[in-house]
């Protein structure tokens, strides 16, 4: 029980990161391999606010998210916008290039020495039923749930959400219908980066703050996103939770070092049975 609960808690972080990935992919069709590094930089920014300027946690979080929104927009406008219609491979390699730049810059500025990062709430774990849980973990889960809810409402019921859904279906038609596609894409990058940033700030207390902290998280988040079908937002959340639990089970029952190996075996098995992921839509047969 405890293992599953801890798995779900870390799964929330994967889910947040995966949600950002899928949001960007669903609207702009770019698989952003620099997602984790952008989250890492956001986390460093929040750390600067926290430690250097002594802001309270929530204020630092807010400011960092503001930064993430701008960061996402800047990356989109300066770089990604120009390869919107380029082959997917070019886009993927481009984000890998950004990955290296961000990783290098962070290393240059803040060094590769891991630093401890504060939790949102301190306090010893307490017992809830048969499982131990800390205030900070409750905060993580709560924040994730609130964000997801907010997000689904936004996507489903606002005009911006409608624009995003439309743009992801057909860029040209959306533009003809008066939707500003580049604005929508900008929004997706901004919100996606912010979601990643939150995931980063939730990760940092566990893994310590360093330029390489998000590498593994991103990869597992990718796995979760793929499991969920890669273009389904609820799929990303559930996929993230599944890999979180699965990874924790493997760590406990097999070996912690092999969690990535097993997670990917899971992915291969799932995709072999359902090539479009658990929540991916039916495979579209190309009309000829």
């Amino acid at each position, binding site marked *: 029980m405890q293992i599953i609960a801890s798995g779900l808690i870390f799964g929330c972080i994967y889910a947040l990161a995966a949600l950002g990935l899928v949001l960007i*992919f669903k609207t702009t069709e770019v*698989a952003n391999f620099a997602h984790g590094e952008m989250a890492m930089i956001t986390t460093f920014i929040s750390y600067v606010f926290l430690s250097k300027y002594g802001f309270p946690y929530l204020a630092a979080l807010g400011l960092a998210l503001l930064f993430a929104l701008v960061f996402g927009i800047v990356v989109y406008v300066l*770089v990604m916008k*120009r*390869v919107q219609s*380029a082959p*997917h*491979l*070019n886009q*993927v*390699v*481009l984000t*890998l*290039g*950004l*990955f*290296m*730049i*961000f*990783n*290098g*810059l962070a*290393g*240059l500025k803040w060094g590769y020495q891991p630093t401890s990062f504060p939790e949102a709430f301190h306090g010893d774990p307490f017992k809830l039923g048969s499982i131990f849980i800390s205030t900070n973990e409750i905060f993580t889960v709560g924040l994730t749930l609130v964000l997801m809810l907010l997000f689904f409402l936004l996507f489903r019921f606002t005009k911006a959400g409608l624009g995003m859904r439309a743009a992801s279906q057909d860029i040209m038609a959306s533009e003809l219908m008066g939707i500003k596609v580049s604005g929508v894409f900008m929004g997706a990058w901004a919100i996606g980066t912010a979601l990643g940033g939150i995931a980063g700030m939730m990760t940092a207390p566990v893994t310590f703050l360093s330029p390489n902290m998000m590498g593994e998280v991103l*990869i597992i988040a*990718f*796995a979760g*996103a*793929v499991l969920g079908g*890669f273009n389904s937002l609820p799929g990303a959340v559930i996929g993230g939770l599944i890999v979180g639990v699965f990874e924790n089970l493997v760590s406990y029952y097999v*070996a912690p*070092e*092999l969690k*990535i*190996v097993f*997670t*990917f075996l899971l*992915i*291969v098995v799932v*995709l*072999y049975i359902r*090539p479009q*992921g658990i929540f991916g839509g039916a495979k579209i047969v*190309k009309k*000829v």
Partner: protein
Amino acid sequence: MKQLFTNRKPWLFLLVLLFLAYPFIVGQSVYLISIFVMVCVYAITAMALDLLIGFGGQVSIGHAGFLSVGGYTVAILTTKLGLPFLLVLPLSGVITGIIGLLIGLPAVRLSGNFLAVVSLGFGLSIPQIALNWDSLTGGYSGLPLARPEWLSNDSQFIYVIILMTVVIIWILHNIVKSRLGRAFVAIRESEVAAQATGINVPLYKTLMFVISAFFTGIAGGLYGYWIGFVSPNDFSVFTSFLLLGMIVIGGLASIPGAIIGAIIFTVLPELTKSLIGLTNIIIGIAIVGIILFRPNGLISLLEMFRIKKPSKKVMDEQEVYLSDLEQGGAARDANV
């Protein structure tokens, strides 16, 4: 096609000559020789990866995993079973090819980003498995291996590497310009039409993975023999990214492109070594810059140069074609 091919022959010849002469040019410099070996290893891998990605359109972001498999294969077969070099080196390709088959079988059902993530998982898993399978791989401390007596000298072994590189360039060149290569490109361009022309798409996709893994395994084997030691940290996910960068920077679906990319991305980190912490940034900027400004890779510079002075005959054809284009284009517009 034929014209281009005959144009390419002197280039290839020049390349081979340069390869053969290199050890003489740099003399006994161990440093330059070892960079050269890495260029060869990465060039073979990049070409093999290009066969899969550039020609076949199947993404792999875990190719460093195959390099590791190749390296470990030679180490294990030499150290644990005492097999001779001439048997081990081909076996490093065969065994890696079999792993490629195992990866390829599920991969044929996947496309695009799904395949990317699965291959990434493979690339991440191999070092982890190597790290944890102590009895076979020596775990964290790795495995040492020795070259046979007659190749123990580096200046002898480098000719094995050169020979292998040249032969593999030739074989891959033969494959991509043959019916197989055409079938791979056809799958990349349209799976529906490929099927309609009788191409067994799942079979050929698996075949691509096997061929690509085979040659990558040999590159890994050569690397293992060269260094005389394999460990889990030899090739990381970072290496996979770099390989991907090589073929995109050089120019996809081009063997010379893959070689150019391999040279640049082997030499560039060496040049920037002194600027600690800047290596990643510089490589990253190089990737971003080239994708933004030369999306068809550096090889497209060469092709631009070629088009600048076409022969008289080609010029005439060009004109005929252009006038056709205007008429036909107008007809199409009218109907669309």
